[in-house]
């Protein structure tokens, strides 16, 4: 008997029946490459200038001078770089996605806090403009918030995806 698609023989776009389009292997690959390009670029802008990056972090008013600030300035760009490489090579994609999810959530919160500070000082929300220290120069806060929200969704999709097709599977040895 010849079966039709409506009978369920044709896999949906996601590659597995019942999966959302966001988990389509090509969509996931696009997310990985996009996030990797952004975070590798951002990391390269910060590596080798820890003093400047420490000042940029301090501008958010969350961490003051001291070892936690300097350790962040030294290590954070390398975390971004390695996450980027993980996403490109497909080694440890979920780990990189989890880190980027955390970093972006944190980043979204501090940018929102800083923006709220400008707004409470009388600057209209749409006019708030500053250098977020992300390695891309000054930008409108609303654009940065939208951008980060998009990165957050991409990282979440990479973390929650049932499987990654263009990745190196890492399995812990079962005892």
């Amino acid at each position, binding site marked *: 008997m010849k079966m039709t698609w409506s009978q369920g023989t044709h896999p949906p776009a996601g590659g597995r029946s019942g999966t959302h389009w966001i988990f389509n292997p090509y969509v996931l690959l696009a997310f990985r490459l996009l996030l990797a390009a952004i975070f590798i670029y951002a990391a390269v802008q910060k*590596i*080798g200038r820890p*003093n400047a990056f420490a000042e940029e972090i301090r501008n958010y008013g969350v961490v003051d001078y001291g070892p936690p600030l*300097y350790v962040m300035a030294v*290590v954070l760009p*390398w975390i971004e770089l390695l996450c980027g490489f993980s996403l490109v090579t497909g080694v440890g994609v979920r*780990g990189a996605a989890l880190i980027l999810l955390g970093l972006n959530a944190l980043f979204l919160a501090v940018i929102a806090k800083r923006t709220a500070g400008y707004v409470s000082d009388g600057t209209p929300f749409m006019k708030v403009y500053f250098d977020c220290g992300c390695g891309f120069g000054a930008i409108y806060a609303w654009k940065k918030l939208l951008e980060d929200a998009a990165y957050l969704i991409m990282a979440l999709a990479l973390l929650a995806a049932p499987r990654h097709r263009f990745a190196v599977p890492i399995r*812990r040895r079962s005892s």
Partner: protein
Amino acid sequence: MKILRSAVFQAIAIVAVSAAGGFAFNSFARNGINPFRAVAKVPVADEGTKVGADGIRIIDLAEARRIVESGGTVIDARRKIEYDGGHIPGAILFDYYDMGAYRDRVLPRLSNEGEIMVYCSETACDDSELLAKELYLLGFTKLLVFKGGFAEWSGSGLPVEKGDL
């Protein structure tokens, strides 16, 4: 749950490798910093405070002019490209964001006997203050920060020097 556990395991590995790479690179990098250095409280006095107080004192254009005209030590905390475009006569370039490149060349020229004036672009920039704090931590205690910076100096029609020193 299994996915999350594997993600946490991978994330820990990425953070560990990044930390090792970051610290290793930092220890060899020209601009490397000591991330565990003690942070000393640097006394910063406002404009108008009497001369002689140890620490960092904010000064105005008149005092900056007095220091330059008396041949005092002046440090430019801006980038090289800005310095080359014009600086206060006699100023020594010491880019705050590239301290490693200038440290060996500049520090031997500084003395704790006289005052050291530091400036950057304009009132809004704080690189002069940040560099002064670094110099304070290195043992220089008679530090003056000219907050008006190069913008106020050149805007007042005072002489400007161009090119590398």
